[in-house]
């Protein structure tokens, strides 16, 4: 009997052959927290009577959600985390370094590992073939102290991709389409396993975008195979020695298989206030947008800024639409400067925010006014998410976002490409 990627990774790490439905106790290869969940993690770590981290070199604290801090309360949380890192000798990435999931992908995650993060979008590292999942502060505190955690081996929903993306259609459109199809709880507790011709040829940045949003369908992990693309990504980032190949077996037991022909996709948008409330960009033409936000762990990578810069080059944003752009990491920011994208974007009227979560979760840097709408490249459009319950959030690809910034309303990016 064949194994799914989830079964393979958890069997490898637990030391016994586990199947969907089994409970596996596994060593944790990487544990991390960010600045909204980290302070509680530190307090729970101490309350549990734990003294030292099981593996300080693979425990990481990120200051990215309120970065730089807009209020003294967040500043004090940052101070608490910096002190904990110093005392325990673990890694810390401070304000301006970037979003945790981007840094985990660039520097820390490896195929076959078990990764737990106190952030729901920890699933992002599934793009590298790691069993990466989000947990709460207490779970991560205990995992940091004991060096292990329990996981129920998830059933698998396999997504089989075929076809070729039409011009103007991107992987963001694919994942929004898929979530629209299966629903915001369509993959609850499950492993979303991506495969097929499109995945075989898909670059790591695109895989990260898709894996990132697996949790928006309720999934526990969003897993990609580890293949030559994974190997070249790891080599490029100086850890080629960490490569191991990982593929699901032929005949592995999947609960369901969903086929998506990407040739049939069109630019897709999630409407307020749930991610599965999708429509085509062209169907929403005329929807006025007061703010466009390009960035986040979903779409703040250099390839995303490249797409936005290509659309905005030599043009200017609509005078009634603010354009906020946050590179996902310091490295992305440097690359964007070097390639000239930052200059292009600023000339087009963009405001560049520091690498980090920026406007995504409503703590700072771009809170909407009553009745305003934002078109964002993030992953979540819940009511009040960007800091005001009386505002509206639409989610789309960087191309749709850039094109809409020019038009001042939602448009199909193919109109300007």
């Amino acid at each position, binding site marked *: 009997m064949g194994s799914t990627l989830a079964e393979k990774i958890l069997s490898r790490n637990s030391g016994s052959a586990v199947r969907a439905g089994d409970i596996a106790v596994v060593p944790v290869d990487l544990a991390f927290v960010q600045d909204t969940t980290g302070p509680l993690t530190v307090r729970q770590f101490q309350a549990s009577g734990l003294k030292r981290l099981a593996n300080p070199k693979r425990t990481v604290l990120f200051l990215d959600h309120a970065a730089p801090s807009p209020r003294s309360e967040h500043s004090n949380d940052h101070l608490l985390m910096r002190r904990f890192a110093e005392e325990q000798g673990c890694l810390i990435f401070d304000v301006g370094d970037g979003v945790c999931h981007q840094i985990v992908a660039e520097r820390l995650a490896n195929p076959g590992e078990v990764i737990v993060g106190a952030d729901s979008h920890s699933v992002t590292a599934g793009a590298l073939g790691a069993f990466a999942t989000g947990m709460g*502060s207490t779970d991560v505190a205990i995992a940091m102290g004991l060096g292990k955690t329990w996981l129920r081996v998830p059933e698998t929903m396999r997504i089989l991709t075929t076809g070729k993306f039409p011009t103007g259609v991107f992987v963001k459109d694919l994942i929004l389409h898929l979530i629209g199809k299966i629903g915001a*709880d369509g993959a609850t507790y499950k492993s979303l396993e991506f495969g097929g011709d499109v995945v075989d040829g898909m670059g790591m940045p695109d895989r990260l975008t898709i894996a990132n949003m697996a949790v928006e369908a309720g999934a526990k992990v969003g897993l990609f195979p580890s293949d030559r693309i994974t190997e070249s990504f790891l080599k490029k980032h100086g850890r080629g020695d960490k490569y191991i190949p990982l593929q699901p077996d032929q005949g592995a037991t999947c609960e369901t298989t969903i086929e998506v022909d990407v040739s049939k996709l069109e630019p897709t948008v999630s409407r307020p206030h*749930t991610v599965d409330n999708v429509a085509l960009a062209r169907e929403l033409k005329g929807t006025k947008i007061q703010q466009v936000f390009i960035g986040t762990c979903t779409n703040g990578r250099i390839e995303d800024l490249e797409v936005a810069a290509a659309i905005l080059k030599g043009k200017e944003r609509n005078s009634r639409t603010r354009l906020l752009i946050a590179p996902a990491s310091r490295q992305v920011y440097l690359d964007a400067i070097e390639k000239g994208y930052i200059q292009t974007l600023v000339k087009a009227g963009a405001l560049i925010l520091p690498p980090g979560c920026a406007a995504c979760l409503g703590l700072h840097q771009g809170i909407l006014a009553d009745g305003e709408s934002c078109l964002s490249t993030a992953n979540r459009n819940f009511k009040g998410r960007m800091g005001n319950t009386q505002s509206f959030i639409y989610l789309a690809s960087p191309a749709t976002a850039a094109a809409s910034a020019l038009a001042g309303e939602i448009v199909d990016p193919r109109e300007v490409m």
Partner: protein
Amino acid sequence: MKLRGTAHKYGSNVDTDAIIPARYLNVSDAQELAKHCMEDIDTGFVRRVKPGDIIVAEANFGCGSSREHAPVAIKASGISCVVAGSFARIFFRNAINIGLPLLECPEAAAGCSTGDIIEVDLTSGEITNVTTGKKYRASPYPEFLLDIIKSGGLVSQTKKKLARAR
């Protein structure tokens, strides 16, 4: 272990931003968090809720962010238990870890309205809507989860384990 309280009913996809908005994530005091519980979707909740009350919701309760502040705020508001059609998985673990019991039962979720008196037996998984007289059954917890609940959450369970190891 039996619980009894008035139902506060919600629909599907109640996300953790709705349970406790990000602007309160730097608050560490549970009672302070409780003052803002559900405020973005139900401003009257905090005024209406009484100790022992039960939240009943449809599918995917607690979806979204991993913030543990969400079950902490619910528990500190006086809610004794949440019954839902289904739970988002991170929320599920978080609630168990901090000692907020959850029962998954789509039939009970559909059969309860705001104001109904609900009785819950955590050991057997039986849910009774006293107002309508209907009974429902949720699947019981696996043994190791029941152990976390009985220990009063993951922190106290770990504490006990560490004490035994010394």
